[in-house]
Protein backbone atom coordinates (compact mmCIF):
# COMPACT_ATOMS: atom_id res chain seq x y z
CA UNK A 1 0.00 0.00 0.00
CA UNK A 2 2.83 2.35 0.79
CA UNK A 3 4.25 1.72 -2.68
CA UNK A 4 0.97 2.83 -4.27
CA UNK A 5 0.99 6.02 -2.19
CA UNK A 6 4.54 6.81 -3.29
CA UNK A 7 3.67 6.09 -6.91
CA UNK A 8 0.64 8.39 -6.68
CA UNK A 9 2.76 11.13 -5.05
CA UNK A 10 5.36 11.12 -7.82
CA UNK A 11 2.68 10.91 -10.49
CA UNK A 12 0.89 13.99 -9.12
CA UNK A 13 4.21 15.77 -8.61
CA UNK A 14 5.10 15.12 -12.25
CA UNK A 15 1.77 16.65 -13.33
CA UNK A 16 2.30 19.64 -11.04
CA UNK A 17 5.86 20.32 -12.21
CA UNK A 18 5.11 19.87 -15.91
CA UNK A 19 2.00 22.01 -15.71
CA UNK A 20 3.80 24.72 -13.74
CA UNK A 21 6.64 25.02 -16.25
CA UNK A 22 4.13 25.06 -19.11
CA UNK A 23 2.11 27.76 -17.35
CA UNK A 24 5.12 29.94 -16.64
CA UNK A 25 7.01 29.78 -19.93
CA UNK A 26 4.76 28.85 -22.87
CA UNK A 27 4.45 31.58 -25.49
CA UNK A 28 0.75 30.91 -26.07
CA UNK A 29 -1.44 32.11 -23.21
CA UNK A 30 -4.11 29.48 -23.89
CA UNK A 31 -1.56 26.67 -23.60
CA UNK A 32 -0.23 28.35 -20.47
CA UNK A 33 -3.75 28.24 -19.02
CA UNK A 34 -3.97 24.52 -19.86
CA UNK A 35 -0.74 24.05 -17.90
CA UNK A 36 -2.25 25.94 -14.97
CA UNK A 37 -5.34 23.68 -15.01
CA UNK A 38 -3.08 20.61 -15.02
CA UNK A 39 -1.20 22.02 -12.02
CA UNK A 40 -4.46 22.63 -10.17
CA UNK A 41 -5.58 19.03 -10.80
CA UNK A 42 -2.21 17.77 -9.58
CA UNK A 43 -2.44 19.84 -6.42
CA UNK A 44 -5.97 18.48 -5.86
CA UNK A 45 -4.53 14.98 -6.12
CA UNK A 46 -1.89 15.85 -3.53
CA UNK A 47 -4.65 17.11 -1.23
CA UNK A 48 -6.37 13.74 -1.69
CA UNK A 49 -3.15 11.98 -0.73
CA UNK A 50 -3.00 14.10 2.43
CA UNK A 51 -6.53 12.98 3.35
CA UNK A 52 -7.97 16.47 2.87
CA UNK A 53 -10.83 15.32 0.62
CA UNK A 54 -13.01 18.36 1.16
CA UNK A 55 -10.20 20.75 0.23
CA UNK A 56 -9.43 18.65 -2.86
CA UNK A 57 -12.98 18.93 -4.14
CA UNK A 58 -13.09 22.63 -3.30
CA UNK A 59 -9.84 23.04 -5.27
CA UNK A 60 -11.45 21.44 -8.32
CA UNK A 61 -14.68 23.39 -7.85
CA UNK A 62 -13.21 26.84 -7.22
CA UNK A 63 -9.94 26.83 -9.15
CA UNK A 64 -10.62 24.52 -12.08
CA UNK A 65 -14.28 25.47 -12.34
CA UNK A 66 -14.18 29.15 -11.50
CA UNK A 67 -10.81 30.84 -11.64
CA UNK A 68 -9.63 29.17 -14.85
CA UNK A 69 -12.82 30.26 -16.64
CA UNK A 70 -12.20 33.82 -15.42
CA UNK A 71 -8.63 33.72 -16.76
CA UNK A 72 -9.92 32.35 -20.05
CA UNK A 73 -12.30 35.31 -20.27
CA UNK A 74 -9.34 37.61 -19.60
CA UNK A 75 -7.38 35.96 -22.44
CA UNK A 76 -10.30 36.39 -24.82
CA UNK A 77 -10.97 40.01 -23.80
CA UNK A 78 -7.34 41.02 -24.39
CA UNK A 79 -7.31 39.16 -27.74
CA UNK A 80 -3.95 37.59 -26.88
CA UNK A 81 -2.59 35.91 -30.00
CA UNK A 82 0.05 33.15 -29.84
CA UNK A 83 2.35 35.48 -31.82
CA UNK A 84 1.63 38.51 -29.62
CA UNK A 85 3.41 40.10 -26.68
CA UNK A 86 4.49 36.87 -25.06
CA UNK A 87 6.36 35.55 -28.09
CA UNK A 88 8.52 38.65 -28.44
CA UNK A 89 12.21 38.75 -27.58
CA UNK A 90 13.22 39.67 -24.04
CA UNK A 91 16.35 41.59 -23.06
CA UNK A 92 19.10 39.74 -21.26
CA UNK A 93 18.52 41.80 -18.11
CA UNK A 94 14.99 40.42 -17.85
CA UNK A 95 16.22 36.84 -18.11
CA UNK A 96 18.75 37.44 -15.34
CA UNK A 97 16.15 39.18 -13.16
CA UNK A 98 13.71 36.29 -13.57
CA UNK A 99 16.39 33.72 -12.82
CA UNK A 100 17.53 35.52 -9.67
CA UNK A 101 13.99 36.06 -8.40
CA UNK A 102 13.56 32.30 -8.67
CA UNK A 103 16.93 31.20 -7.29
CA UNK A 104 17.12 33.32 -4.13
CA UNK A 105 13.94 32.03 -2.41
CA UNK A 106 14.62 28.54 -3.81
CA UNK A 107 18.04 28.36 -2.16
CA UNK A 108 17.06 29.94 1.17
CA UNK A 109 13.80 28.04 1.63
CA UNK A 110 15.02 24.67 0.39
CA UNK A 111 17.92 24.77 2.86
CA UNK A 112 15.43 25.66 5.60
CA UNK A 113 13.10 22.81 4.59
CA UNK A 114 15.77 20.15 4.26
CA UNK A 115 17.75 21.05 7.38
CA UNK A 116 15.37 22.54 9.92
CA UNK A 117 11.94 21.06 9.30
CA UNK A 118 10.68 18.63 11.95
CA UNK A 119 10.01 15.15 10.64
CA UNK A 120 6.24 15.24 11.06
CA UNK A 121 3.85 12.33 11.07
CA UNK A 122 4.11 9.41 8.66
CA UNK A 123 0.35 9.37 8.03
CA UNK A 124 -1.98 12.36 7.62
CA UNK A 125 -4.67 13.07 10.15
CA UNK A 126 -8.24 12.04 9.44
CA UNK A 127 -10.44 15.11 9.87
CA UNK A 128 -14.14 14.30 9.44
CA UNK A 129 -16.25 16.74 7.46
CA UNK A 130 -18.44 17.37 10.52
CA UNK A 131 -15.42 18.87 12.32
CA UNK A 132 -14.88 21.33 9.46
CA UNK A 133 -18.54 22.29 9.57
CA UNK A 134 -18.38 22.83 13.32
CA UNK A 135 -15.29 24.97 12.82
CA UNK A 136 -17.07 27.11 10.23
CA UNK A 137 -20.11 27.58 12.44
CA UNK A 138 -18.14 27.96 15.66
CA UNK A 139 -14.75 29.62 16.13
CA UNK A 140 -14.31 30.73 12.52
CA UNK A 141 -17.81 32.09 11.91
CA UNK A 142 -16.59 35.66 11.44
CA UNK A 143 -14.06 34.66 8.75
CA UNK A 144 -16.75 32.65 6.97
CA UNK A 145 -19.04 35.66 6.85
CA UNK A 146 -16.26 38.08 5.95
CA UNK A 147 -15.16 36.03 2.94
CA UNK A 148 -18.67 36.30 1.52
CA UNK A 149 -18.54 40.08 2.02
CA UNK A 150 -15.15 40.20 0.26
CA UNK A 151 -16.49 38.14 -2.65
CA UNK A 152 -19.51 40.41 -2.95
CA UNK A 153 -17.38 43.56 -2.88
CA UNK A 154 -15.03 42.10 -5.52
CA UNK A 155 -17.94 41.22 -7.79
CA UNK A 156 -19.60 44.61 -7.37
CA UNK A 157 -16.28 46.39 -7.89
CA UNK A 158 -15.57 44.38 -11.04
CA UNK A 159 -18.98 45.19 -12.49
CA UNK A 160 -18.56 48.87 -11.64
CA UNK A 161 -15.06 49.05 -13.14
CA UNK A 162 -16.15 47.48 -16.39
CA UNK A 163 -19.51 49.27 -16.59
CA UNK A 164 -18.40 52.90 -16.26
CA UNK A 165 -16.98 54.10 -19.51
CA UNK A 166 -13.44 54.80 -18.34
CA UNK A 167 -11.10 55.82 -21.11
CA UNK A 168 -13.68 56.12 -23.87
CA UNK A 169 -13.18 59.38 -25.77
CA UNK A 170 -16.28 61.51 -25.83
Amino acid at each position, binding site marked *: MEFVAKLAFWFYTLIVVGGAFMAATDASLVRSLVGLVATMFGVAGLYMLMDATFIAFMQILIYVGGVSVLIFFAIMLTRAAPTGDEA*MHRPLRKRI*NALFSMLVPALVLSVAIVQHLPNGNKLPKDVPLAELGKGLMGPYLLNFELISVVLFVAMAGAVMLAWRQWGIKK
Partner: protein
Amino acid sequence: MSPLQLYQLVALLLLCVGLYGFIWRRSLVGMLICLELMLNGAGLSIVAACQLTPANAVLGQLGTLLVMGLAAAEATLVLAIVYVVTRRFKTSESIIVSELKR
Protein backbone atom coordinates in the same frame (compact mmCIF):
# COMPACT_ATOMS: atom_id res chain seq x y z
CA MET B 1 13.12 12.46 3.39
CA SER B 2 9.90 12.62 5.35
CA PRO B 3 6.54 13.16 3.57
CA LEU B 4 6.23 16.62 5.14
CA GLN B 5 9.51 17.73 3.57
CA LEU B 6 8.52 16.35 0.16
CA TYR B 7 5.19 18.18 0.16
CA GLN B 8 6.85 21.41 1.26
CA LEU B 9 9.44 21.06 -1.51
CA VAL B 10 6.68 20.70 -4.12
CA ALA B 11 5.02 23.82 -2.68
CA LEU B 12 8.35 25.67 -2.81
CA LEU B 13 8.78 24.65 -6.44
CA LEU B 14 5.36 26.10 -7.27
CA LEU B 15 6.33 29.36 -5.55
CA CYS B 16 9.64 29.60 -7.42
CA VAL B 17 8.22 28.76 -10.85
CA GLY B 18 5.45 31.28 -10.20
CA LEU B 19 7.98 33.98 -9.27
CA TYR B 20 10.07 33.21 -12.35
CA GLY B 21 7.05 33.46 -14.62
CA PHE B 22 5.82 36.61 -12.89
CA ILE B 23 9.02 38.43 -13.90
CA TRP B 24 9.28 36.63 -17.24
CA ARG B 25 5.78 37.40 -18.54
CA ARG B 26 5.10 40.49 -20.60
CA SER B 27 1.30 40.58 -20.51
CA LEU B 28 -0.93 41.17 -17.50
CA VAL B 29 -2.90 37.94 -18.06
CA GLY B 30 0.31 35.90 -18.05
CA MET B 31 1.27 37.51 -14.76
CA LEU B 32 -2.16 36.59 -13.35
CA ILE B 33 -1.60 32.95 -14.32
CA CYS B 34 1.75 32.90 -12.50
CA LEU B 35 0.12 34.51 -9.45
CA GLU B 36 -2.38 31.64 -9.32
CA LEU B 37 0.56 29.21 -9.41
CA MET B 38 2.05 30.86 -6.33
CA LEU B 39 -1.31 30.80 -4.49
CA ASN B 40 -1.67 27.08 -5.26
CA GLY B 41 1.76 26.53 -3.71
CA ALA B 42 0.70 28.45 -0.61
CA GLY B 43 -2.40 26.30 -0.19
CA LEU B 44 -0.40 23.11 -0.61
CA SER B 45 2.09 24.27 2.00
CA ILE B 46 -0.62 25.15 4.54
CA VAL B 47 -2.45 21.83 4.13
CA ALA B 48 0.79 19.83 4.37
CA ALA B 49 1.77 21.72 7.52
CA CYS B 50 -1.57 21.07 9.22
CA GLN B 51 -2.21 17.49 8.10
CA LEU B 52 1.21 16.01 8.82
CA THR B 53 2.10 17.73 12.12
CA PRO B 54 0.27 17.90 15.45
CA ALA B 55 -1.07 21.36 14.53
CA ASN B 56 -4.77 22.19 14.41
CA ALA B 57 -6.01 20.48 11.23
CA VAL B 58 -9.38 22.24 11.09
CA LEU B 59 -7.71 25.65 11.19
CA GLY B 60 -5.33 24.73 8.38
CA GLN B 61 -7.98 23.31 6.07
CA LEU B 62 -10.33 26.24 6.60
CA GLY B 63 -7.42 28.65 6.09
CA THR B 64 -6.74 27.04 2.72
CA LEU B 65 -10.41 27.41 1.87
CA LEU B 66 -10.19 31.13 2.67
CA VAL B 67 -7.08 31.44 0.47
CA MET B 68 -9.08 29.91 -2.38
CA GLY B 69 -11.94 32.35 -1.82
CA LEU B 70 -9.55 35.31 -1.80
CA ALA B 71 -7.91 34.00 -4.99
CA ALA B 72 -11.32 33.90 -6.67
CA ALA B 73 -12.09 37.47 -5.55
CA GLU B 74 -8.68 38.66 -6.74
CA ALA B 75 -9.09 36.98 -10.13
CA THR B 76 -12.46 38.71 -10.57
CA LEU B 77 -10.98 42.13 -9.87
CA VAL B 78 -7.93 41.52 -12.06
CA LEU B 79 -10.23 40.48 -14.92
CA ALA B 80 -12.06 43.82 -14.64
CA ILE B 81 -8.82 45.81 -14.39
CA VAL B 82 -7.27 44.01 -17.38
CA TYR B 83 -10.45 44.70 -19.36
CA VAL B 84 -10.36 48.43 -18.57
CA VAL B 85 -6.61 48.70 -19.21
CA THR B 86 -6.88 46.90 -22.54
CA ARG B 87 -9.69 49.19 -23.65
CA ARG B 88 -7.75 52.28 -22.71
CA PHE B 89 -4.19 51.38 -23.77
CA LYS B 90 -5.13 49.03 -26.65
CA THR B 91 -2.63 46.50 -25.22
CA SER B 92 -2.17 44.49 -22.04
CA GLU B 93 1.61 44.56 -22.11
CA SER B 94 2.88 45.51 -18.68
CA ILE B 95 5.86 47.56 -19.87
CA ILE B 96 3.65 49.92 -21.86
CA VAL B 97 0.97 50.15 -19.18
CA SER B 98 3.58 50.94 -16.52
CA GLU B 99 4.37 54.26 -18.22
CA LEU B 100 0.85 55.37 -17.17
CA LYS B 101 0.24 57.36 -20.33
CA ARG B 102 -0.89 56.64 -23.79
